[in-house]
């Protein structure tokens, strides 16, 4: 999903574009298949040949490791590499009973909620304003979207400088207000810096989609609304925002997955392998346990738990799209 975790989106319908009738845009298979071409080639071998490279890669690098993850989540690996024993749901109960894990889960939830909320609302605010102005429209657009191209760890590095004890301007600014920011030492301060950087990095993405959604609203609707209602603010709440709801919903899911997964780079750069007193997210914990702690079973169980979370989110997303497709 989103930039990174590699997309689950494919929702042109939600970006305000109208599609010709008969082309179903939901990523749902049944619809897709019914809307097949009238004319097709028939060949015994060719389609398999064309599919082969993609399928080979998917089986080797998607299905095999995914199955592996589920498999090893039920086993306890010997730390010295001498075989493994079946422990059933043992790894799962261990994980879910661990206070540390639950603490990280709680932080992840708060982190996700805050990043999603701020990235969405700032993106929406800027998109509404950019949609409203005529002069300088293109320049604003370019200047507001280009941060999209910056990798999360690079954003994290720049963030580290701005939150640096010696040279960081944000630290200096906070000092004026009597707040001594100590990123890397103080749990809350580190979390604050992580959230700021993660939001900053995600604003352009939301801006692009909101703006494209706004521009998809027909002029006639806007004009009608302008005649009915003089207050710009009320017009926004009662007419524009409901029309943007599909875009917003789509972005909500994308932002949640962004906060859960794509912020890995930001977090990794900010905690620099010293996770001890620092806030980390669930994905980072999977990484720490698997690669630093060598706890294959526990890490796999955590992976599977995360898989379930993503799975639910994705299903939720697809259900929603399908509904939309039906009603339109």
């Amino acid at each position, binding site marked *: 999903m989103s930039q990174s975790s590699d997309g*689950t989106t494919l929702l042109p319908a939600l970006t305000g574009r109208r599609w010709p009738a008969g082309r179903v845009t939901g990523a749902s298979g049944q619809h897709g298949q019914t809307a097949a071409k009238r004319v097709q080639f028939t060949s015994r071998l060719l389609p398999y040949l064309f599919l082969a490279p993609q*399928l080979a890669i998917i089986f080797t690098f998607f299905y095999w490791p995914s199955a592996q993850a589920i498999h090893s989540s039920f086993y306890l690996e010997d730390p010295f590499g001498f075989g493994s024993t079946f422990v059933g749901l043992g790894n799962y109960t261990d994980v879910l009973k661990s206070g540390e894990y639950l603490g990280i889960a709680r932080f992840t939830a708060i982190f996700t909620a805050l990043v999603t909320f701020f990235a969405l609302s700032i993106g929406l605010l800027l998109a509404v304003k950019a949609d409203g102005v005529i002069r300088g429209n293109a320049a604003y657009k370019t200047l507001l979207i280009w941060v999209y191209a910056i990798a999360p760890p690079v954003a994290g*590095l720049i963030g580290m400088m701005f939150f640096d004890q010696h040279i960081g301007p944000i630290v200096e600014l906070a000092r004026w207000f009597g707040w001594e920011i100590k990123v890397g030492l103080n749990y809350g301060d580190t979390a604050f810096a992580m959230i700021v950087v993660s939001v900053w990095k995600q604003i352009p993405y939301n801006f692009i989609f909101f703006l494209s959604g706004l521009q998809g609203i027909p002029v006639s609707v806007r004009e009608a609304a302008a005649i009915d209602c003089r207050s710009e603010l009320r017009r926004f709440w009662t007419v524009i925002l409901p029309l943007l709801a599909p875009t917003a919903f789509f972005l909500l899911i994308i932002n949640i997955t962004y906060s859960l997964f794509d912020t890995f780079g930001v977090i990794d750069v900010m905690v620099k392998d010293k996770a001890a007193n620092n806030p980390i997210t669930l994905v980072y914990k999977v990484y720490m346990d698997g690669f630093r702690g060598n706890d294959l079973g526990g*890490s796999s169980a955590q992976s599977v738990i995360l898989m379930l979370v993503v799975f639910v989110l994705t299903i939720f997303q697809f259900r929603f799209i399908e509904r939309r497709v039906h009603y339109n």
Partner: protein
Amino acid sequence: MHRTKILDHVILLIGVFIMVAPVVVAFMTSTHEAADIHRKGLSLTWGGHFAETYGTVLTREGGFTGKVTGFNMMMNSMILGLGFAIGKIVLSMLAAYAIVYFRFPLATFFFWVIFTTLLLPLEVRILPSYEVMNALKLTNTYTGLIVPLLASATGTFYFRQFFKSVPDELLEAARIDGAGPFKFFIDVLVPLSRTMMAAIFIIMFVYGWNQYLWPTLMTTDEGFFTLVRGIKQILLVWVGSNIPDYNEAFALAILAMLPPVLIVVIFQRWFIKGLTESDK
């Protein structure tokens, strides 16, 4: 009415400031000497040591093995970005072509096999993926760096959507002219898809270039480090030192963001098209 417009511009300018200022400051600061930055903090003025710092970062042999240069990492980033983007386009165009233009018994089944990959991002299966790569002896290879990232369906869906929008009459006409599946694909579909390919290329290049987690796992040999992967190494060295090389860290960050940023800014129209109509 007039006043609200001014307020709009003020809000937008604040937004632009927040998005642009950190990077401008990073760039300007990178042209100062480390000791100066340590003493005076971040800077908004030109420091005059641009050539020096960037020359050092690009050509000095560093790292634990003392052999890796910034230029080297940049090349690796380029290989990853290009390899991923091209691989993705080729694979997904072929697969989408098979799904849309051929009638065969297992079509629906394969569609779902590919579709399922959308459900689980790489991040949730990193450890088993790493084990698989180990078993295949693909760690510290370009293949291992690029190919596993291709295991997702996004591009396929994108081209599938597009192929479906191509009028049926084209195929009918081509068949009357005696064109077979290969000829139709190369002479009709590929030229028609040019804009789509450009749009998806941009998105995928940026995505590939910016990969962090996977290169971190797959490459322990510094010869294969990408710029984005190298960032953390820089920070780890930096933690212990007295006067950190702020300038070099900033320079590296600027270099790491330069190619994707340039592509996004220059090809903005295609980029937005690719993003909003497909999302990776």
